[in-house]
């Protein structure tokens, strides 16, 4: 599913080309050769299981016994599943709050790092580190400790005389701690923003300076518009990624999505239905609903992009 965004980008860049020269045709052969391993993975690891899950979504499958066909019953049940609706709400809240914040943080740091600092490579690596770690089990466990009743956050608060509480174990705050975790993993979009900033021709800024534009004006009238394709690209990727978030909620809540389903991400509920309640048919149907939701969201994203993304071609 994450390939969707990538495909779209490639298609977009292909659309620019008008005709194909012989040299480009040679390029294509090489491309197919180098893509071959990826295609093998696509069909064996992604497409195969996806087709299998499409079949399973129309069956009653307990994992322990062979599946039996029940038609659209699983999909019909989803309409009345209150917990599923709640998980959609939780996931949507998480995605629509944390992704914009994460992108803002990524852009802010990219702007900061783009000023030709000494030791830029080091800073870039340091800020990218959370992205590599953020999805890992170890960080999620660390998060549980930091936001626990006697964790780091409460110790700092205690220093200022504020009585804290168990942030990850309170339904009003648990989701917030996961959002902070997601914002913290701004490294990947930051790197892409940096690359985008490097692409903006210096002459625009020079011209603006001559005309007497200040820093803010330069940012609003040059940087931001020319960066919109990159922002769009990051937005698509991060939205898709955030919808599929699982590890953080699973580890932080001990696999329960608790307290009181407050961190019950859609994927976590899917996992519970499938593996805890042995209802893999229903879980497969849920997986397909997620595909539809993400595809629809991405389509809307592309439609809206016409109005705000500026391709300086």
């Amino acid at each position, binding site marked *: 599913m*994450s*390939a969707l*965004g*990538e495909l779209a*980008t*490639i298609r977009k*860049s292909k659309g*620019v080309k008008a005709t194909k020269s012989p040299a480009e045709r040679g390029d294509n052969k090489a491309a197919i050769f180098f893509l071959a391993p990826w295609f093998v993975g696509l069909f064996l*690891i*992604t497409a195969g*299981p996806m087709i*299998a899950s499409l079949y399973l979504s129309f069956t009653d499958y*307990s*994992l*322990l*016994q062979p599946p039996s066909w029940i038609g659209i019953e699983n999909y019909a049940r989803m309409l009345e599943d209150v917990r599923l609706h709640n998980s959609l709400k939780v996931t949507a809240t998480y995605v629509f709050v944390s992704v914009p914040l994460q992108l803002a943080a990524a852009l802010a740091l990219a702007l900061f790092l783009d000023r030709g600092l000494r030791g830029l490579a080091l800073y870039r690596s340091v800020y990218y580190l959370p992205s590599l770690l953020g*999805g890992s089990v170890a960080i999620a466990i660390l998060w549980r400790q930091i936001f*626990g*009743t006697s964790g780091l956050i409460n110790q700092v608060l205690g220093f200022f005389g504020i009585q804290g*509480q*168990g942030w*990850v*174990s*309170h*339904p009003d705050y648990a989701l917030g701690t996961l959002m902070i975790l997601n914002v913290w993993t701004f490294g*990947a979009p930051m790197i*892409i923003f940096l*690359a985008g900033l*490097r*692409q*903006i*021709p*210096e*002459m625009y800024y020079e011209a603006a300076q001559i005309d007497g534009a200040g820093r803010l004006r330069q940012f609003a009238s040059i940087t931001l518009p020319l960066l919109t*394709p*990159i922002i769009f*690209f990051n937005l698509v*990727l991060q939205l*898709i*990624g955030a919808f*599929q978030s*699982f*590890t953080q909620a699973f580890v932080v809540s*001990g*696999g*329960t999505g*608790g*307290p*009181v*389903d407050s961190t019950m991400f859609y*994927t976590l509920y899917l*996992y*519970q239905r499938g*593996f*805890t*309640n*042995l209802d893999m048919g229903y879980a497969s149907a849920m*997986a397909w609903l997620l595909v539809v939701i993400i595809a629809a969201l991405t389509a809307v994203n592309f439609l809206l992009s016409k109005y705000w993304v500026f*391709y*300086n071609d």
Partner: protein
Amino acid sequence: MSHHTRTRTGGARGTRGLLRSAAVVVAAGLALTACAQEAPDNSPEAPEAEESVDPDAPVTIKFSWWGSDTRHELTQQVLDNFMEKHPNITVVSDFTDWNGYWDKLATTVAASDAPDVITQEERYLRDYATRGVLADITEYSDIIDLENMDESILASGEMEGGQYGLPTGVNAYAILANTSVFEQAGVELPDDETWTWDDYVDVATEISEKAPEGMYGTQDYGFNEPGFAIFARQRGEALYNEDGSLGFSEETLAEWWEISLQLRDQGATPPAAETVEVDAGGPEQSLVGTNRGGMAFFWTNQLGAVTNASGQDIQLLRHPGESEHERTGMYFKPAMFYSMSANSEHPEAAATLIDYLLNDPEAAEVMLSDRGLPANTEVRAAVIDQFSDVDKQAADFLSDLEDEIVDGLPVPPVGAGEVAEIIRRINAEVLFDRLSPEDAAAQFVQEVEAATGQ
């Protein structure tokens, strides 16, 4: 992303390449994590036809269990001894905590990679047995000696004409009291033969009031349905009837949660958020295990793990209210079962391991009562002298209870495994005041009836 604009660093091709490779890396990362989460190993292992079985040919079998660190260490020791005795059998250990165990087991079964010897629990045994996952152990009675097994306990692993699980030992759900916390609070241990639920609330509240800051009288009991089963039985009701239907009234369940809220409001238990955190920590991180609380409900075989964690003298107490209503509610439960996969490639080796675990005093000497008081009466007699004080306490407690216990629980219905998750969630709703005890009771009944198909 144009070909014609000049850029500060490198050509357009270079930056676009960088951009694209960054995108690929990100996408690949997303795809990888997605795979790691959901791609089950679907390759079914081709069952190899075994023509003749050479009993000495080297074989490898897998044994799965759940539990605390204490249990993992002890079990590994037992398995090492077993492998020394049977050099041709290699046992691969497959263990997790309780919460992850069932997810993992279901996955491995679906992938035709089920462990050869599977630890089971009464709430799940019927699910797995009726779906053809487990072997009927009577087929291997020439290897597994059932001669000295306690008959009444053996029956708990029997269903639909087959023996699908062999009970590892006997257990009771009881209160673990941390005597050090009681002392620090200057509160006497209650007389557990006569105390009522009101007494329990009073004692817990008194400890919270008198003990040093940060200590509590007791730990919330609402995350586990066995505690409610006892509460209902004391009132002549039951969690499940023989036919698998629900045997209690919503009022009784609401009352159970009202007491829990009373404890919370009087400060006898921690605030809800801390309670959730403590509950997630298991026996070792419990209030009693970390010397931060006076009492907690646990199974008697968890006494060792909690005592180890706390380093203090932990005493077993009967549930409150055992003499308050029409009858006693406590019961003996098979702690867990050893089962065999119906698709084991080496059933003889698996049976040999089960026989060793259940019937060899050498194994019992290491395990002691961590999987319950041994169900093999001869083994129990042989190792009882070697019990540590902790194990002895559990054994004495159970034999004291023997005369008081009216009857056992019927085998839970299919779907009972889901109830463990349902009560955990609804209890949190009650503790955070999202549901009133009455509404919670109604919702519990509705969800459990849906889960068990009643």
